[in-house]
């Protein structure tokens, strides 16, 4: 295990250090101390590292991540794991808005609540939230899975394309073109795998599935009222 003190080194030095490690490095486990809510911690990683951040982080932590497994032992600020490509970002606390925004791949787990716009414009990322998500989550979501073990806030899945949304609690207010859909066996299997990866014990059958009615993303004069 290698320890990096953010207070002593500064954010740029830490990110460069982790980024420049060879992909086949044997020094795989890194601990970042004193994050002090700073922004862009462990961004742009491109190797199969295990990074533990010991405390609360600011904006964009784990952004653009490839391959690395990043654990935030605290609260995560705005845009956590934004545009993640692969790997895992795991938040032990709550998360501020826009978690997993535009994520292309990988897994984002938030043990607590996520705030508004969780999974906005997601493009293939899998997001599992242990608690609630705020308003306008999965806004314009294109691909991937958003699993919410608690309730979803207003306008869930507004203008959604092809992502799959699973909500265990209430989702009373769906956004434009977002509808409830049947939970088929393949969905239950996918959901079971995601819950297992997030170490959650909920039964897949206790969730409901939401997705796109597909009325908005091709212009159709018959649907003009819905635009």
């Amino acid at each position, binding site marked *: 295990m290698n320890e990096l003190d953010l207070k002593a080194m500064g954010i740029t030095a830490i990110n460069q250090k982790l980024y420049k490690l060879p992909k086949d490095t044997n020094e795989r486990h890194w601990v970042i101390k004193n994050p*002090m*809510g700073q922004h862009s911690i462990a961004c742009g990683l491109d190797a199969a590292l295990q990074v533990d951040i010991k405390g609360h982080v600011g904006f964009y932590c784990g952004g653009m991540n490839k391959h690395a497994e990043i654990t935030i032992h605290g*609260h995560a*600020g705005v845009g956590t794991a934004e545009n993640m490509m692969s790997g895992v970002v795991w938040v032990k606390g*709550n998360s501020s*808005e826009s978690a997993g925004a535009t994520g292309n791949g990988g897994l984002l787990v938030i043990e607590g*609540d996520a705030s*508004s716009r969780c999974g906005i414009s997601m493009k293939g990322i899998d997001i599992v939230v242990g608690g609630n998500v705020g308003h306008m989550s999965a806004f314009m979501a294109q691909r991937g899975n958003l699993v919410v073990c608690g309730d979803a806030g207003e306008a869930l899945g507004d203008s959604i394309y092809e992502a799959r949304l699973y909500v265990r609690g209430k989702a009373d207010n769906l956004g434009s073109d977002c509808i409830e859909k049947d939970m088929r066996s393949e969905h239950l299997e996918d959901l079971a795998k995601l819950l297992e990866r997030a170490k959650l014990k909920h039964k897949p059958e206790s969730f409901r599935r939401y997705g796109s009615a597909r009325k908005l993303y091709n212009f159709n004069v018959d649907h003009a009222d819905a635009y």
Partner: protein
Amino acid sequence: MCGIVGLYLKNPKLQPKLGEMFKPMIIEMTNRGPDSAGVAIYRNPVKKNQTKFSLAHDDASYNWKTVDTGIEKALKCDATIKQIGNHCILVTTAKEDAVVAWLKKHHPGVRVVGSGHTIEIFKETGLPENVYSKFDLSKAKGTHIIGHTRMATESAVTTAGSHPFATGADLCLVHNGSLSNHNRLRENLKREGMEFQTENDTEVAAAYMTWKLRNGSTLKGALEDGLKDLDGFYTFLVGTADGFAVVRDPIACKHAVMAETDDWVAMATEYRAIAHLPGADDAKIWEPEPTTIYTWGGNV
């Protein structure tokens, strides 16, 4: 941009350290607002029959000495002044309206930036660190404090356009965001008799709150009505005699984070401002929800 910070002490033993605890919080928000900074600190409550005014003048060498004696003589009351930077704290037994009218006539360059029993408001252009030391706030004792670092987007960088804006006795407002209907609203409020010193959007929000409160609304009621009448993006932090309140617009894209321990409650635009507080690592941290009014300390 702009940065908002607030600290409310639940543990009275920390009160002697209020200014010291708050200093790194407001300085951390410098790059969100390097144009100007301001704080409202709640300390040294005056007697029931007294009012405390925070006065400001653009000229740092302004002669305040004739203010207290002038008020005493003209309004037949007791008055004391204490100059702090280019601000002055006036404590008097005179009626508030009479003091404001007298100042307007005899000291037209003096602005009343706050009034009440405990509130003191200090604000100035420049970096937050410089503003903070100018008003000697590092050693300040008190119960709670709110602050603002400004990156001006809507109007000029002036002391008058700096936050906090007073909204009534012991009340003030700081704002991160921008209002889109402030020109129309300003005209409406002028017709209701409200006066304005700047073209600033936040001053309109403050005047709106003042007007609502004067007409008998509770603070909670004024904030709820504000959600309907103020159009734009905002996170508001409102300082009250006993604590503070936080409210965000329905879209809630102007950042805000709250943290609470057994000793304190803190609110900031970004968590890094709160990270400096003792016990922050173990605090309960969350993002306030839109259109929800959060309050600490006393009834709102």
